[in-house]
């Protein structure tokens, strides 16, 4: 029984992926503090590495057309273990939604509205999130199209305006980093922006062009990556070694823009784009959390769960970290290891299990 009746097009899936990757630029500051100017190399390396895991995700999803991660778990792991694995994934998606909501609230209270409590941003954000997710996948799927285009246009626009401030010496020296830091930063890249794309395994069945899912998924991934790498290269070229000092380097770069004293202080544009991107990203995670729960409890539709889960996300977003420093520590040192379970280990077990079942038949 289908819990979600709405469908999105392949192109909307692609734009959702682009926006999702763009929203993860928040994570870049963690990694920048580890590898400084070599960041672009680490990102390019993990970009190639992730193709292996995406191949696994897509192979599993396309083997069971019309079924999402929760339904696939039920088939492959059996009813009881399948439900436990699904619950773990739902918890993982819920956690990402709460952590991202906290991040955006921290950003707004630290940079734009100093002195205003996090709760104000969390509540106002949560209300819009609940309203949007109640309207279904189609609503935020459609929203992602203009936002992704706006993202790309702004990236090109800001890059062009800052070219005069580029210093190519900022990229040197290369690889002046410890091996453990390379590993940690690669792990962070896998865990935060790229690995979180496992969430789309919940959305694949609701794409109308099932045969083109693979194409649009990879296309979104490649376009999102190009956009991300342009931003990273631009930030390193402009800021150099001090990139890691900023919570959001792109914000700082936009602050530097000065075209004949006319186009100045463009950082607010970055803040607005970041707000939109994070909004879509949290929407995706809130949506898959409630969708997963509704499927787990065999409900006819998921809408009654959006409000309680939205409230739980808001409460935990406000209380899970004592400060943004604690969030930064946890995000850089603990979460990447924890996320590997959901991003790498369980999908590999699922993949092996799928082939064992296929051959035993």
């Amino acid at each position, binding site marked *: 029984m289908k819990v979600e009746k709405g469908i999105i097009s392949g192109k909307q899936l692609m734009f959702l992926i682009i926006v999702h990757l763009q929203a993860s630029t928040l994570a870049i500051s963690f990694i920048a503090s580890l590898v400084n100017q070599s960041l672009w190399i680490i990102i390019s390396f993990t970009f190639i590495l992730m193709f292996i895991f995406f191949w696994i995700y897509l192979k599993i999803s396309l083997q069971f057309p019309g079924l999402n991660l929760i339904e696939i778990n039920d088939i492959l792991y059996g009813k009881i273990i399948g439900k436990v694995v699904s619950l773990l994934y739902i918890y993982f998606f819920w956690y990402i939604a709460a952590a991202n909501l906290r991040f955006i609230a921290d950003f707004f209270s630290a940079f734009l509205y100093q002195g205003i409590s996090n709760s104000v941003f969390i509540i106002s954000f949560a209300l819009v999130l609940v309203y949007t997710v109640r309207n279904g996948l189609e609503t935020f799927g459609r929203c992602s199209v203009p936002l992704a285009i706006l993202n790309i246009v702004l990236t090109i626009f800001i890059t062009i305006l800052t070219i005069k401030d580029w210093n190519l010496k900022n990229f040197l020296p290369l690889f002046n980093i410890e091996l453990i830091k390379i590993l940690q930063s690669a792990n962070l890249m896998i865990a935060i922006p790229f690995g979180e794309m496992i969430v789309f395994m919940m959305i694949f069945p609701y794409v109308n062009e099932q045969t083109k899912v693979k194409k649009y998924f990879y296309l979104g991934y490649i376009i999102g990556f190009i956009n991300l790498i342009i931003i990273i290269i631009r930030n390193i070229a402009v800021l150099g070694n001090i990139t890691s000092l900023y919570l959001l380097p792109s914000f700082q770069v936009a602050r530097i823009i000065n075209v004949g004293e006319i186009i100045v202080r463009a950082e607010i544009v970055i803040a607005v784009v970041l707000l939109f991107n994070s909004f879509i990203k949290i929407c995706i995670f809130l949506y898959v959390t409630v969708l997963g729960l509704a499927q787990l409890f065999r409900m006819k539709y998921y809408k009654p769960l959006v409000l309680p889960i939205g409230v739980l996300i808001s409460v935990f977003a406000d209380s899970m970290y004592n400060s943004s420093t604690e969030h930064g520590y946890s995000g850089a040192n603990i979460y990447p290891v*924890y996320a590997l379970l959901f991003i790498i280990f369980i999908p590999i077990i699922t993949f092996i299990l799928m082939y064992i079942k296929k051959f035993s038949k």
Partner: protein
Amino acid sequence: MIVLLIIFLISGFVEVKQLINKKFWHELKVSSIFLSIALIFLLLYIFNLPLPNPVRLMEYEVKDLLHLNYK
């Protein structure tokens, strides 16, 4: 958060009413459980009472149990 509580109570009431009108009893049962959990956590938070923290659980698993944290 009190604002959220008020909005939550009003929206929750409307939600439950709709489910009763449509006679979706199973959905009513499940959503009532989640609405109650959300209400308990919201009240705990408003009254500054200790809340279970998913971050502590994650830290315990990775740091104390597996010793796999980076720093």
